């Protein structure tokens, strides 16, 4: 909100362009996808799209799963990270997936695709990877490369609700650091506040019939999603440590200590965590 928060944020922008690349923070959708094999669970009446673009496709996990589930669909993933692109290509080849291609391209700059190229542009858990101020133009670009009648689909989550003090502490550091670097939708960093923003981002970019679906992923110790998501949390908080330090919200010493504590709390028998996330989608008219 362009309210009182802006002036407060401006005073504190020493590190607004982090030198450390921020990875995809969450993969809250993958346990459900792995369990059900349903790649677009919210799309009840849409036949499988022919051409799908996945934004910041990373190691290609989502792209490859969808490619396997719908062999008629041509999948494209774009990412700036050459290593990840090569990893994704190798995975696709190893799994014999012929309908997925991975392209080195910055997903947050004007896209090197013609207008209306894709039936679906899919963007999962981008929060943190780009400044709040650039979201509108980035989404507008997603809409441009979508064909009329096609749709743009965004997945984003808030930080998990947990009983692990160390995970909660790291979540808090991340929230603060994203706020300091203008990557948080929160007015001062209490939470990420990305999820309430999505619907209007799509509407403002010209999408129609914007709808949202809420999901919860319980990755407590006794849940089937625990193995997968506790591993994801461990990876995320290993990769973002340099960013947290650079943003000035913690020190190397502190973050290492809290990280070790988190690893052990994630494995505790009484570890509890749920994550709420939204899928928001809209049609290009």
């Amino acid at each position, binding site marked *: 909100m362009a309210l009182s928060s802006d002036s407060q944020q401006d005073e504190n922008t020493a590190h607004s362009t982090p030198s450390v690349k921020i990875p995809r923070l969450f993969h809250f959708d993958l346990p459900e996808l792995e369990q059900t094999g349903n790649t677009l669970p919210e799309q009840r009446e849409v036949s499988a799209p022919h051409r799908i673009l996945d934004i910041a496709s990373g190691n290609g996990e989502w792209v490859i799963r969808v490619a396997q589930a719908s062999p008629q669909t041509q999948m494209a993933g774009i990412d700036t990270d050459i290593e990840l692109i090569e990893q994704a290509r190798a995975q696709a080849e190893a799994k014999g997936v012929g309908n997925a291609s991975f392209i080195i391209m910055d997903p947050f700059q004007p896209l090197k695709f013609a207008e209306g190229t894709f039936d679906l542009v899919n963007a999962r858990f981008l929060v943190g990877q780009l400044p709040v101020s650039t979201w509108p133009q980035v989404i507008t670009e997603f809409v441009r490369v979508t064909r009329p009648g096609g749709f743009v689909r965004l997945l984003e989550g808030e930080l998990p609700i947990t*009983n692990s003090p160390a995970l909660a502490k790291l979540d808090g550091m991340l929230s603060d650091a994203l706020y300091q670097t203008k990557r948080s939708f929160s*007015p*001062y960093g209490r939470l990420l506040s990305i999820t*309430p*923003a999505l619907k209007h981002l799509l509407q403002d970019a010209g999408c129609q019939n914007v709808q*949202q679906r809420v999901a*919860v992923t*319980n990755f407590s110790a006794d849940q089937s999603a625990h193995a997968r998501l506790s591993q994801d949390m461990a990876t995320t908080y290993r990769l973002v440590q340099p960013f947290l330090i650079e943003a000035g919200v913690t020190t190397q010493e502190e973050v290492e200590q809290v990280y070790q504590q988190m690893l052990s709390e994630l494995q505790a028998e009484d570890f509890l965590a749920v994550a*709420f996330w939204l899928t928001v989608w809209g049609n290009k008219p």
Partner: protein
Amino acid sequence: MMDNTSSQDENYYILGDSNAEMVHLIITDRHFNRSMGGLLPEQPNPVISSIHDVLDVGCGPGGWTLELAQAYPHMQVTGFDLSAGMIDYARVQAHASLLDNAHFFVANAMKPFDFPNDSFDLVNVRHLEGVLPVAAWSEMLKEMFRVTRQGGIIRLTDCEWGVTNSFANEKLLELAIHAMQATGMSHSPDGRNYNITHLLSRFLRDVGCVNIQERPSILDYSAGEQEYQGGSRILTLGYELMEPFLLGTQVSARPELDQLRRQQSLELLEDSFRGIIYTLTAWGTKPSVRS
């Protein structure tokens, strides 16, 4: 006025037991019931048909209880609450709506329930976040389990307190969470979230339920949404009522609170206001002895 040692009975309603509080709960009920997509949206019709006796624990002014009795005449629905004012209101409503299958009485959810074992097909409790002390949950769950019939359902619904882009609203939320922590009402390890939804399934598991499932819902009360007016009203009225609690726990002082509440009411009016409340319903079955 409020400290950690004060009697929990006296402070059962942190907002005070008043008419304004009742209005607040009535509006809240209506909006949550709608945003959740119905009264028992997760239960398939054959299950609903097999439910005859329902207990609603801490029913407040009876919003959900009354709607359930009205929607399903085959059910006998009983609600209880600590507040005599709330129960009076619920009884008057039941009478006015000619509902003879809705019953209300005054009782404390933190005391043993005055029912024999195996009395109900569904035992429901909603929105005890900020009402029930952390320490009281497991005893309450045991009582809920005891009065549920074998094969019956125990159902818990609670919410995190919302995610908004309003500076003042976020600050007020955080103050409320800190006050809850100070009075033993919040499970939050760090004071950023209220922290209840991660516990619901575990409560059910620990008490002995099987086949535990979860269903999330959202109340989107961003500017321009259908629930905007109601959601804004819940927030402004909620913090007005909570003021004595926030002052009493000394998490804030009057000048700061007054300023934040003024700013909140302005920010809620902005076209750019965005707000979502995440709610989780978890339910499980009481196993039959043979299984």
